[in-house]
């Protein structure tokens, strides 16, 4: 189980290349990458604030919940903070399991909880002013399925 909270970029390809494929009981690996999107075309940067200390605890608790709910061979969470440019990788999760259902479900569970239960806040810095990203009702609702 690997959890990293960092300012530095990470290399999604490299992480995928070395994650979870060494056990002979791993049949399925799922990974998710979150990228800074620029819908309006005038995003200068995305600033991600977090709560050092609580962030690591919250991610650890979410990861523990996934490990105890599904039979996972391994699990990875990386989340960045600081100023990110459009197109940059924000975060990733990866799960390894015997079967695909567990790997997919655990990855979606991690994402749903990360979105609404890990203390990160995003601010969009645009040429025409800045704004905090609002939490979406359906992100909160997504927790209901677990």
């Amino acid at each position, binding site marked *: 189980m690997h959890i990293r909270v960092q300012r530095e970029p990470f290399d999604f390809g490299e992480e995928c290349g070395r994650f979870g494929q060494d056990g002979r009981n791993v049949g399925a690996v799922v990974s998710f990458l979150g990228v800074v999107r620029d819908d309006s075309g005038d995003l200068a940067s995305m600033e991600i604030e977090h*709560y050092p200390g609580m962030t690591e*605890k919250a991610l650890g608790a979410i990861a523990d919940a996934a490990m105890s709910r599904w039979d996972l061979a391994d699990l990875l969470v990386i989340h960045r903070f600081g100023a990110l440019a459009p197109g940059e990788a924000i975060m990733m999760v990866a799960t390894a399991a015997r079967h695909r259902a567990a790997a997919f479900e655990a990855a979606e569970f991690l994402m749903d909880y990360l979105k609404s*239960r890990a203390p990160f*806040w995003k601010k969009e810095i645009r040429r025409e002013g800045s704004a*905090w990203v609002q939490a979406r009702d359906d992100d909160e609702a997504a927790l209901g399925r677990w």
Partner: protein
Amino acid sequence: MVNVLYFAWVRERIGLPREEIETKAETVADLVAELSGRDARYAAAFADVSALRVALDQQLSEFSAPLNGVREVAFFPPMTGG
């Protein structure tokens, strides 16, 4: 003494990331009432408590929760990670 932390627009409205507070507030809600009475910046930050979340010693909690024994209180908007 309790450490009070503010994040995202709560931090921006109050103008501070953290402060140490001497308080006799018994619950989070009492502390919010006390802070709101300080000045317009605090009043603006805490105007709509339903838009806020609170963590006690780095655990998500409720505004009705007691403060005794708590060393760190954090106020912030709903989280938007991922």
